């Protein structure tokens, strides 16, 4: 599953929320089909232009028949601001797919699966739920947002139930997404979101004896496992988030 690097065209870009963008590009013809939990290094500016590093963005959706690859990302700094300016027909460089991704076959075989996301950490969960559903295992989805949820309609066909929590009370449960999760109901919990949220999920799972996998993020230079800039010090030694991860056993990466 080696990453390749190529230029692709933008097909469309929309704004599901003020600081959130959904970017759809032509699926690269070279390289393997991306799996849920994998990501690409995106660059919409020349090698000699700022910022120096490309930006790691997880795959939100990939459709081989349609030939599309979609990213959902939050505008945070110079790199994502430049990505947000991309319009139809413009090109960008993709390097990937990078990372291990979720073990969907293993998850589907585990039994009852809960998928827990927070904020822009929901980005990789759409393809995850889609792949789980295709493997005959519709997961229950629990998501937390600060205020208005975004992107939820796309999840409907692939999930058993969808629970929403918001910090502001704007939608769903007024409180934490972890309030919605009873790990005893599940054989496996998969999570992606803010570190504090994932640690909370991991703690609940550990107490209930339910296995939990967490998808981490970090600053990255290469995205390929070459520079060791994104190392995460796990209980089983140093691991690269970009190549060994981003999906890890939660117990290996969080103090529980």
């Amino acid at each position, binding site marked *: 599953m080696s990453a*390749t690097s190529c230029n692709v065209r933008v097909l469309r870009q929309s704004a599901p929320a003020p600081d959130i963008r959904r970017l759809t590009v032509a699926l690269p013809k070279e390289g393997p089909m991306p799996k849920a939990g994998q990501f690409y290094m995106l660059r919409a500016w020349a090698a000699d232009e700022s910022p120096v590093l490309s930006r790691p963005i997880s795959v939100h959706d990939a459709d081989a028949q349609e030939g599309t690859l979609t990213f959902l990302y939050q505008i945070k700094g110079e790199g994502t601001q430049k990505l947000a300016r991309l319009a139809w027909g413009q090109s960008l460089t993709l390097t990937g797919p990078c990372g291990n991704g979720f073990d969907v076959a293993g998850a589907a075989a585990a039994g009852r699966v809960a998928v827990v996301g927070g904020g822009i950490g929901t980005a990789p969960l759409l393809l995850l739920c889609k792949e789980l559903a295709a493997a005959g295992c519709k997961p229950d989805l629990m998501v937390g947002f600060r205020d208005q949820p975004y992107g939820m309609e796309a999840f409907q066909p692939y999930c058993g139930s969808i629970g929403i929590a918001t910090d502001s009370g704007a939608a769903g449960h007024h409180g934490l997404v972890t309030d919605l999760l009873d790990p005893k109901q599940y054989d496996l919990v998969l999570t992606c979101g803010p570190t504090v949220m994932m640690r909370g999920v991991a703690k609940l799972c550990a107490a209930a004896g339910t296995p939990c996998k967490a998808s981490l993020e970090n600053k990255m230079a290469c995205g390929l496992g070459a520079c060791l800039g994104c190392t995460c010090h796990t209980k089983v030694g140093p691991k690269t988030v970009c190549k060994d991860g981003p999906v890890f056993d939660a117990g290996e990466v969080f103090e529980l």
Partner: protein
Amino acid sequence: MSDLHVNFLGKTLAGPVVAASGTFGFGEEYAAIEDLRLLGGISGKGLTLNGQPGNRGERLHETPSGLMNSIGLQNPGVDHFIQHELPVMKSLGTSAWANLGGHSVEEYCEGAERLSATDVDFIELNISCPNVKQGGLAYGVHCADASAVVSAVHAHCTKPLIVKLSPQAESIPDMCKAVEAAGADAISLCNTFQACAIDLEKRRPVFDNIFAGLSGPAVRPIALRMVWQAVGAVNIPVVGLGGILTGADALEFIMAGATLVQVGTANFMDPGACVRITQEIGLWMDTHGVRTLDEIRGCARV
């Protein structure tokens, strides 16, 4: 049609561009991205005898045209490299350089001895890592310290020995002369520049070690000056590196007298940088009627 081959320490390399240590893993990760057979070589991630987990906290920080890093020589150790990474590296169709750091003269010597017993093509002695408290840069500032470690390693090393220097050396010409006299077969320079960044919100340094190593185009003109000085100071080959992003950048180093160049941070700005730079050098040579790099190496020195 230009001929990009370079004769370097008894070997014929396919091109003048070598992937710089710490930016290319052990090469395998880039095999599906670019044709590694066009490279002069790959300098693997810096090794220490027993391996180490590297630094805690932030490891990367972007600056204008630059990148600061504080990896801290995270590596699997010399024996692991020999068993697992080296065989893959040797299968990539280019020369394999083992970059070796150390925490003591004895460690450097033991590492060099074990690597000498393998089929690695070159040993690049790293006496210039700014990101470990002990070792690394500890030997790269004063000529006497560098001389001591290089002459000790020289006695244990049967591979061509390249010594990678730090821009923090007290005097580049004196340092170059010292390592040449101590037995270096070639010199590479320069490693990253010690630098600092502050996180305003935390009101603390970005990096746990306070200082980190700056690389990328931001340092290129300074690195070029140091390569120029090195070429003038010694009679052994000089491998030039520091912020090279284009064929034109690489040609500046070659015209200053560098035998080879290394490309590091550019691999993050363009994962196909090493091959692209090689091709840009060839294109420039073609359009200028230059057949071999020997015709232009050092031509800028009058």
